[in-house]
């Protein structure tokens, strides 16, 4: 199956949980943002309770969980924002 590279960014609580700023993912074509979240949940017990992903950004723009990722995309899960 064709593969693609996607850069996954971690911020705030997700950076603390994963211990990383970012990861390079190699994904099967057709993978959605939600699929990536479910994979993270499977890997990280602290995320196990979060069945629904937080807000999602693809290439610095808010996107739906069902967004199909593309080669070279930059994906970020956006925990509840708290600016101001």
């Amino acid at each position, binding site marked *: 199956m064709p593969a693609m590279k996607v850069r996954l*960014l971690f*911020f*705030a*609580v997700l*950076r*603390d949980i994963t211990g990383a700023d970012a990861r390079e993912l190699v994904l099967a074509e057709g993978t959605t943002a939600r699929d990536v979240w479910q994979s993270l949940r499977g890997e990280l017990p*602290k995320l196990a*309770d979060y069945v629904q992903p937080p807000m999602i*950004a693809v290439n*610095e*723009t*808010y996107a739906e969980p069902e967004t199909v990722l593309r080669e070279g995309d930059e994906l*970020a899960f*956006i*925990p*509840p*924002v*708290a*600016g*101001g």
Partner: protein
Amino acid sequence: MYLTDDPIDTRALLARVLRSSDGAYVLFEGVVRNHHEGHAVESIFYDAYRPMAEKEIDAIVRDIAARHPDVALAVVHRLGHLVVGDSSIAIVAAAPHRAEAFEAARMMIDRIKETVPIWKKERGPSGEEWLGWQGSGRC
């Protein structure tokens, strides 16, 4: 640039927007307080998805400017480690008349809190916590 790692210079911000036709300006500053939901707070670490936060704030500024064409706006949000009393955000809304200045400044802070990817981790005597993460960010 709407984000800074340095203390906010509100005079410089005001100087950027105030016009001789303005009859009023509203300066809003958010400051770090020493408590949150019963916990003592000593400091806050602000994190951001910087390029996206810049874009989101810019979109908000443009939208408010379109709704209030007579208002001149400026905003800066500070990131990094802030202590009690430090300003985390400053907004200036200048207008020929006060009503629009108040309205635009209020709309700006409300909208920034809703969508801009900025996060805060509160630190106090009882530990640290990322706000909004349903308690599990507490460590």
